[in-house]
């Protein structure tokens, strides 16, 4: 019998994996750094919370609006961001995260320091989604997101992204607009984050600005880097490992951010491709072991 504790951890992991998949579109596919992904996770959560709590919409009616708003704000913030140099982009996205968090915290409409409570559970076939059914609902959304990413890697768009990442000038000479494609990545990535945020809000039923602070962004990035930037399954693997580890070693929970940051540095230094990416030590060892058997 699965304990409710395990289901909670599992659900959070699946929800986070959706956000990390979105981050992967921005960082992995488009090659843009983003250190403020939690802002869009939060925008999704707050939008869905407000639409359901204050405007009385159902989760399902609100969802398309939430995703559209997430993408739209991604577009608006992406527009000035992608024109700056890479190191500035890192700073800019951190700034976005702090500003969005501050807006949530200090504007009364967003519930101020108290946040928003009483967020309704999702209704599906007249069932209030929680526990295992909700877990599977999240898993269903994760599958859709992964399917989109998988489809994406086989599309002309992904070829264009490859070209932009490697030689922007040459890509332009081939009819590719780097600005538009980077914006496309921002829109895709931030709307996935918004979806994830919405699920989070209806799972927790109570949200607070602190849930979407900068350390959460660092966590997302660590998960992505650990699993493998630019791969299909990397975001999922990374999120699972970083979601489970602190539960196995409880002391880690208090030092989560320190651990994430250290991991990020170590991975970027020694295994930039992540567990599933190119030149992966783990993949090497596994394939060698299997060959020997």
């Amino acid at each position, binding site marked *: 019998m699965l304990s409710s504790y395990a289901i909670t951890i599992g659900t959070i992991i699946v929800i986070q994996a959706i956000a990390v998949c979105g981050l992967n579109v921005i960082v992995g596919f488009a090659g843009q750094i983003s250190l403020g992904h939690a802002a869009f996770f939060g925008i999704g959560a707050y939008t869905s919370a407000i639409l359901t709590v204050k405007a009385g919409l159902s989760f399902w009616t609100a969802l398309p609006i939430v995703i559209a708003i997430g993408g739209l704000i991604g577009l608006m913030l992406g527009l000035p961001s992608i024109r700056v140099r890479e190191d500035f982009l890192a700073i800019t996205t951190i700034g976005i995260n702090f500003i969005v968090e501050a807006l949530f915290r200090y504007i009364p409409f967003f519930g101020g320091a108290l946040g928003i409570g009483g967020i309704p559970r999702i209704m599906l076939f007249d069932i209030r989604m929680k526990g295992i059914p909700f877990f599977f609902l999240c898993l269903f959304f994760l599958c859709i997101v992964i399917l989109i990413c998988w489809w994406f890697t086989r599309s*002309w768009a992904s*070829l*264009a992204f*490859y*070209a932009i990442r490697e030689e922007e*000038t040459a*890509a*332009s000479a*081939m*009819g590719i607009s780097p600005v538009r494609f980077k914006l496309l990545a921002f829109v895709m990535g931030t709307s996935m984050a918004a979806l994830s945020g919405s699920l989070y809000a209806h799972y927790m039923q109570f949200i607070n600005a602190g849930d979407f602070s900068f350390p959460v962004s660092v966590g997302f990035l660590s998960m992505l880097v650990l699993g493998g930037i630019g791969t299909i399954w990397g975001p999922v693997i990374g999120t699972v490992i970083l979601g489970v580890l602190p539960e196995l070693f409880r002391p880690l929970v208090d030092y989560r951010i320190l651990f994430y940051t250290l991991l990020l540095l170590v991975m970027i230094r020694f295994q930039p491709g992540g567990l599933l990416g190119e030149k992966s030590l783990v993949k090497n060892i596994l394939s060698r072991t299997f060959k020997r058997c």
Partner: protein
Amino acid sequence: MVAPILTVNGISKHFGGLKAVENVDFQVFPGEILGILGPNGAGKTVLFNMISGVYRPTEGTIDFRGERIEGLPSHLVARKGIGRTFQIVKPFTSLTVLQNVLVAKGIMKYGHLSRIWGPWGSRKDINEAKEILERVGLIELADRKAGLLPLGNLRRLEIARALVVGHTMLLLDESFSGLRHEEIGRLEALIRDIRDSGRTIILIEHNMRVTMRLCSRIIVLDHGRKIAEGEPKDIQKNELVIEAYLGRKGVLDVP
């Protein structure tokens, strides 16, 4: 007389105080090979960069088939059918040679949000890309990573991509430099073949013999200014040109 396909009018590019290109005019006619000569730093590549939309001219206009294209971003110039190569080759290194050409084949898709979701690498696209590779002599290396190729092959890959994009006009920036002797003859034949298939070509070259043999007309730049224009035989005798290449006098003696 035939109408020009490209008209460059009083074009200049200044980088701060440096006048990289200064008040240059010329015309290009359909189906010709126009050569651009000039010593190092004369402004040849900057001129290409203005035509292809990498730089916005400080002054002047560029007219391509009746449309003003100066200041237009690169990707829009490319979509008008102007392909170019880069003097410092810019392959997509982690992609294969075939995929490099496929990126160029996507040119009619990248501008439409609805078309970019289709799968790349359909049988038809691959076959067409392979035909291009066949034509430039890279077919054996189709599945090789572009980053692993020697310079000669990379120059041909540049031409392959420009060939896909430039269904009207190609800008070739020193495609011959760094090639071995036997490769030069093959590339010359390829460029003639491209011209014969109805395209217009502008090429920048340092190799005098090649330029004289290939081009119907030549313009010469020096310190950003056009100092001569004419048929190869006139250019060879031009006093200003000889002076610009002073110290390298012998290079102008073509057998």
